[in-house]
C-alpha cells in the first residue's frame, strides 16, 4: 500500500509543487532544473509511445491468434506494420536520399499509401456532414435559428462565390459578406470562445491541483 499508493502520490506532490514554484524563481539553478528534468521527460515520452504502440499491436495479434471474426483484417494491420518497418529500416528512417533528394522506399509508402489513406478517411466527413446538415439543421426555435443564421452568414462570406452572390443580391448594404463574417468571428464568436477558454483554463488548474494533492489518481490505473 505504501509503495503502491503513497509513494506515487508523494512523487506527484513533490514534482507538482517544485515545478509550480519553479516558474516564479528566476535563479539559474531553477532554470537548469527545469531544462534537465524537461529533457529527461522527452526521453520518457519516447518510452511511453512504445507502450501505446505495443498495446495496439497486442490487441490485433490477439485477434489473429484467436481466429475470431475479422481476424484477416487484423493480419492486414500486422502486414502493414511489418511492411512499413522493413521499408523504414531499409531506408534508414529517411524519406529522401542523396544530394538529388530521391524518394526512398519509405518516402514512397508515405506519399502513395499513408497520405492517400489518411486523407481519404477524413474526407469522408465532408459527405457525412452534408447528409447530417440536410437531416438535422432546422430552425425549430430561437437558438437553432440563431445558429443557422450565423452558419449561413459565415459560409456565405467564406467563399468567393458566396461573396459574389452577396454583392449581387445585397450589394446595397454597406458591409460586404467577408466583413459581416469577420465581425461575427471577432465579436460574438470570440466572446463565447473566450468564455469557454476561461472555463477550460480554470478546469485545467483545478485538475492539476487535484493531481498534486492526490485527489485525482487516474494516472495510477486500477486500484489507484
Amino acid at each position, binding site marked *: 500500500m505504501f509503495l503502491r499508493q503513497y509513494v506515487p502520490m508523494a*512523487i506527484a506532490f513533490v514534482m507538482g509543487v517544485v515545478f509550480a514554484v519553479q516558474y516564479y524563481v528566476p535563479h539559474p539553478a531553477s532554470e537548469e532544473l527545469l531544462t534537465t528534468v524537461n529533457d529527461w521527460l522527452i526521453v520518457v515520452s519516447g518510452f511511453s509511445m512504445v507502450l501505446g504502440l505495443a498495446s495496439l499491436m497486442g490487441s490485433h495479434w490477439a485477434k489473429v491468434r484467436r481466429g475470431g471474426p475479422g481476424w484477416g*483484417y487484423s493480419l492486414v494491420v500486422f502486414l502493414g506494420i511489418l511492411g512499413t518497418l522493413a521499408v523504414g529500416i531499409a531506408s534508414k528512417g529517411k524519406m529522401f536520399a542523396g544530394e538529388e533528394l530521391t524518394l526512398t522506399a519509405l518516402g514512397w509508402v508515405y506519399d502513395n499509401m499513408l497520405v492517400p489513406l489518411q486523407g481519404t478517411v477524413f474526407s469522408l466527413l465532408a459527405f457525412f456532414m452534408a447528409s447530417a446538415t440536410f437531416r438535422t439543421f432546422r430552425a425549430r426555435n430561437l437558438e437553432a435559428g440563431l445558429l443557422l443564421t450565423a452558419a449561413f452568414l459565415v459560409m456565405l462570406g467564406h467563399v468567393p462565390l458566396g461573396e459574389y452572390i452577396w454583392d449581387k443580391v445585397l450589394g446595397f448594404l454597406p458591409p460586404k459578406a467577408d466583413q459581416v463574417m469577420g465581425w461575427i468571428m471577432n465579436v460574438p464568436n*470570440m466572446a463565447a470562445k473566450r*468564455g469557454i477558454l476561461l472555463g477550460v483554463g480554470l478546469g485545467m488548474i483545478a485538475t492539476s491541483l487535484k493531481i498534486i494533492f492526490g485527489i485525482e489518481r487516474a494516472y495510477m490505473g486500477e486500484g489507484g
Partner: protein
Amino acid sequence: MSPELLGAWVAAGLTLAIFSFLYKDNPFFKFGEHLYIGISVGYSITLLVFNFMIPKWWTPLFREGRMSLLVPTVLGLLIWTRFFPRFSWLSRWAFAFVVGFGAGIAIPRTISNFIFRQVESTAVPLVSRGQQGVSFGWGDFSNFLIAFGVLSVLTYFFFSVEHKGPIRPLARAGVLFLMVSFGASFGYTVMARVSLLFGRMYDLVEYSSRGYGYATLVLLGLMVAVFLAQALSKKREGG
C-alpha cells in the same frame, strides 16, 4: 512500371477503396482502413526509432556516455513494467513523475496565458475619449458586446448556482452567444471537411489522365463491376 506510375495506381486504388464506404460497408473499405492503421503504426515506430531512440537516447547514452540519461531510462523502463502484471504497479512511480511535472508546470502558465491575458483583453474601456469628449462608436459597442458575451457565457457554465431570478436572463444570453459561436464553428468546419475532399478529388482527377494509365477510371470501373456482380448474385439468390 516506374515507381511514380505504380504509386499513382496504389494511391488511386486505396482512395477509391475508402470512398467505397459511401456506397456501403464492404471488404475494400475494411482492407483500406486496416492497412491505414498498420502503415501509420509502422511509420510511427520507424520515426520513433530513427528520429528519437537512436540519435537522442542510444547514441548519447551508450556511445557518448551521457550518464544523466540513466534517470529517464530507468523511468522509461518502469513504464514498460505495465507489460508484466506482477510488476505493473512500479509504472505508477514513473507516471506520477510525469503527471506531477505536467500538473506543476501547467498551473502558472495556464493562469498567465489563459486566465490573466484573456481577462486583461476583455476588461477594455467601453467608451472612447477624444478631443470632442466621450463617444460610443461601433468599436466601443463591439467591446461592450465582447465583455457582456464573456460574462454571460461564464454565467451559463456556472452550475453551482441555479439559473433563476437575475441569473436566468444572463445565462440565457450566454446560450445565445454560444449558438452564434457554434454556427460560426459549423461554417468553418464545412470548409475544413471540403478541403479534405478537395485534396483527394485533385489526386483522383490527376490519376485519371493518360499519363497515369487512366488509373482512377480503370479502378473505379473494376470496383463498380464487383459491386454490380455482388448485387446481381444477391438478387438471383433472393429471386
